[in-house]
């Protein structure tokens, strides 16, 4: 069994949008004999790439949901996870990374390390995913893989090392030189499926030798024997170098770089060899779970099929046969008919049908072993749930979930749509934790929240297509926050005498801005009890805390949550008959509201880190557009005919920016954004927002 595990790879492909991930996945499937014809993402044959299973993805040319698929390459089984590239869908990327043992970081040979590559790289570091890089699109005009390698070193601080150099570039790209074996490799046949090895072309010999030296030098840091051989000036066997590179890659201290062009069918097979040679098998990665029965202490999972089963549901999809749950088995194995427990709900479930996925086609299997990725039918769960063998109560560490920054009201057009919408929302919220929904008690409207305009757009679109739910969409709303800027005291007495037992409570203390330290788990609120001499009885202290928390849920300025406050009670009064939990809660709530008005209330708005990439000729227009949007230009980088502009812009000003940018750059510029921080909104903006809020509430 262990031998089999050594032949397994769970890998993901992640990259900046349009670096050609989907095309690369498509080629990998082709060379591994999983599909019989190659379709292009933007293809004319109307079939589209096999990995993009949704119509919508085909239309937009982007991969929204990761599709897991198994292929075999030279006796190894590779489970491949295609991940979305747009920043709005990062939760998908993060969730995929969680279940991967290794990854291919795809870069464009022209664009190099772009904003999304940086985000993805940061995520890979968080989950300690060993990676190899693939510099794609070496056939494009302006291709410069050497510059991309420099960027990997400078921008991502990766110890990147070229395994190959290109033979020709741009339209002259013919093949690659394998630096390890010093052979020129050409890709013949209509789809590049026939490999032809030749001597290294004379004109590339110099470059190849110096790059090879660099490769050996970097690899030798991971093998003392190899270092010795090198120092003695002797030849180093290829296997030894490969072992050293593997060691370096697994310890995240080395990043082997491959190159080619997926579109032109060049350089894919050596990349697959690289996956097999340098990325870890499931036993080489330490996976941890939390033991819920033992105070959530960390336990290390063992890739042993004999151990009790632990599996993670990392993705749900809705197919024609009902819900499909993608799982990764971390320990033990899953067989048809097994009974497992969902750690979150404590519900038992029985494994009915077990399948292996190939994009949208499937293959029935009877058992999924340790380290395997498979899919289950008819299991009711949410993504991120852990399944354990009965008797075990482990939870896989919860994935990091960012908070939504934008919301949108949606109203179904008719009764049928309303039902379908409910179904769709139920599904989407299960699939994607960054997509949230609730019914606004005041307007009675359904509100959806997410990570950006495009993120919500895609879900509205999916409701229409997949669930036939026609909805009207309101204006996007920014998730503001309310805060205080200075300390304010309170001393509030709540008294009510309406026959029978009355209500009495007095609370005194102060509120002040909260600067959380590293030890603070709650970064937004801290409750401090400084009551001395029992002026408030101990039993009512939690009531005060609760009252403050209620007050902070909805700020008086805009109705958004209040953040960053220390609430301290230091005095009060009570009555033996009339004081109650309720009375103290009410007193604390009103005391907070009173103090809040005195504490320099402010409105915080989300500030987005925006990166625009464009041909230099539109630089001026882009500067202007950022300036108009209350943005700060942090930097601008020019490189030949392209420029990259980094800016910080308030989210509220970014609505519709994609359209504006497209029209002013003839569709040649693109941008990405993500939440950077919250900052105090300027006076004029705050005033306007408050006015609108008051107008809206006038009628009520």
């Amino acid at each position, binding site marked *: 069994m262990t031998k089999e595990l050594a032949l397994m790879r769970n890998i993901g492909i992640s990259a900046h949008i349009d670096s050609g991930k989907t095309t690369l996945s498509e080629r990998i499937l082709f060379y591994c004999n999983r599909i019989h014809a190659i379709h292009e993402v933007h293809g004319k044959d109307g079939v589209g790439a096999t990995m993009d299973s949704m119509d919508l993805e085909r239309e937009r040319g982007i991969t929204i949901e990761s599709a897991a698929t198994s292929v075999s390459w030279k006796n190894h089984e590779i489970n491949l996870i295609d991940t979305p590239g747009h920043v709005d869908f990062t939760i998908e990327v993060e969730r995929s990374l969680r279940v991967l043992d290794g990854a291919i970081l795809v870069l464009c040979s022209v664009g190099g390390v772009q904003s999304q590559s940086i985000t993805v790289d940061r995520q890979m570091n968080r989950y300690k995913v060993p990676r190899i890089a693939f510099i794609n699109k070496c056939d494009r005009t302006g291709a410069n893989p050497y510059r991309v390698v*420099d*960027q990997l070193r*400078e*921008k991502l601080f990766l110890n990147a090392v070229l395994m190959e150099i290109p033979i020709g570039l741009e339209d002259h790209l013919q093949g690659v030189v394998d630096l390890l074996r010093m052979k020129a490799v050409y890709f013949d046949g209509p789809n590049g499926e026939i490999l032809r090895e030749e001597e290294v072309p004379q004109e590339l010999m110099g470059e190849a030798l110096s790059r090879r030296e660099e490769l050996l030098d970097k690899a030798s840091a991971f093998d003392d024997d190899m270092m010795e051989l090198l120092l003695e000036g002797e030849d180093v066997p290829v296997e030894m170098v490969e072992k050293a590179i593997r060691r370096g890659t697994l310890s995240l201290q080395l990043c082997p770089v491959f190159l080619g062009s997926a579109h032109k069918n060049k350089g894919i097979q050596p990349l697959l060899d690289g996956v097999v040679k340098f990325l870890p098998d499931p036993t080489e990665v330490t996976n941890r779970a939390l033991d819920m029965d033992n105070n959530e202490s960390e336990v290390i999972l063992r890739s042993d099929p004999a151990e009790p089963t632990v599996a993670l549901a990392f993705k749900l999809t809705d197919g024609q046969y009902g819900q499909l749950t993608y799982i990764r088995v971390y320990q033990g194995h899953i067989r048809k008919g097994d009974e497992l427990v969902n750690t979150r709900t404590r519900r038992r479930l029985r494994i009915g049908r077990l399948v292996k996925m190939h994009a949208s086609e499937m293959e029935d299997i009877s058992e999924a072993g340790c380290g395997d990725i498979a899919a289950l039918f008819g299991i009711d769960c949410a993504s991120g749930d852990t399944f354990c063998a009965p008797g075990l109560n482990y939870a896989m560490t919860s994935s990091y979930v960012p908070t939504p920054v934008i919301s949108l009201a949606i109203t179904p057009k008719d009764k049928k749509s309303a039902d379908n919408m409910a179904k769709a929302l139920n599904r989407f919220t299960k699939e994607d934790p960054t997509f949230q929904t609730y019914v606004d008690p005041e307007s009675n409207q359904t509100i959806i929240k997410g990570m950006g305009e495009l993120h919500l757009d895609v879900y509205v679109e999916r409701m229409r297509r997949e669930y036939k739910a026609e909805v009207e969409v309101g204006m996007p709303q920014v998730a503001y926050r309310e805060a205080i800027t200075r300390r304010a005291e309170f001393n509030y007495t709540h008294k009510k005498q309406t026959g029978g037992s009355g209500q009495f409570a007095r609370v005194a203390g102060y509120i002040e801005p909260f600067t959380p330290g590293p030890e603070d788990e709650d970064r937004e609120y801290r409750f401090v009890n400084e009551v001395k001499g029992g002026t408030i009885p101990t039993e009512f202290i939690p009531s005060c805390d609760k009252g403050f928390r209620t007050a902070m849920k909805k700020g008086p300025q805009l109705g958004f949550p209040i953040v960053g406050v220390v609430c301290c009670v230091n005095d009060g009064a009570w009555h033996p008959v009339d004081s109650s939990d309720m009375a103290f809660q009410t007193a604390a709530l009103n005391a907070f509201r009173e103090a809040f008005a005195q504490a320099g209330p402010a409105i915080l708005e989300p500030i987005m880190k925006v990166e625009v990439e464009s041909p*230099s000729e539109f*630089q*001026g*227009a882009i*500067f*202007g557009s*950022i*300036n108009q949007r209350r943005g*700060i*230009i*942090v*930097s*601008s*980088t*020019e*490189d*030949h005919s392209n420029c990259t502009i*980094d800016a910080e812009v308030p989210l509220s000003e970014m609505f519709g920016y994609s359209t504006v940018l497209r029209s002013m750059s003839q569709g040649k510029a693109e941008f990405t954004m993500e939440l950077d921080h919250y900052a105090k909104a300027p006076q004029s903006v705050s005033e306007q927002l408050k006015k609108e809020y008051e107008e809206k509430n006038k009628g009520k």
Partner: protein
Amino acid sequence: MQVNELISNSPIRVFEESINGGLGKGNIGVLASRHGIGKTACLVHIATDKLLQGQHLIHVSFSGNVEHVLNWYKEVFREISQYKSLDDAFAVYNTMRENRVVMNFSQENVSVDRIISSLSTLIRQGAFQADAVLFDGYHLTKATEEDVRKIKAFAQEMNIEVWFSVSPAVQGVGYDEFGVPETMAPLKDLIDVLVGLKYNEEKSKVIMTVVQDHHSRVSHPTGVTLDPRTMLITD
């Protein structure tokens, strides 16, 4: 300490006195030395002083790594704000950030015309009213007289101060007694202030000398040196 105290006590005031009260708008100033003396830190210190005074500036770099430049600013600010325990340092820094744009050219041998065109675009279309432009690592010694004249004209037209940090672009260049590379000689007539930086082993400090000050060609000490630890200008 308040910001205005920090400004008035800054060693940069001493430095400015030594060059007749400062470089002045429309003029070109050059800090010249061999590699690795601390010109970048020195330039960023001058920039930070301007930012503290609420001025707007553009930092032009040629390294290809913007993050690196931003870190210099962070470091220099941290150094001076902590040393003088500046009040409300976080808010001050945020305002400074808003008034600074880093413009980076990663292409080798980018033309002066291209740089000037990008700067003008930022100032005009980006509505960024720059008071100063600082060039870090530009190979001024390789520039032609014509190039320097264009920069000077640009500085005058936009009414901005222009600072350069300069090291020789090629190896094997000689230096004068103040640390200025010989390759600077042909450009001396075109620039307004030239400051040489040279490491003095006895004092273990970098000595800054005014080699040329507006129209005067009489060299004299600046009254300030570079601290070899922080690379910042000190009294």
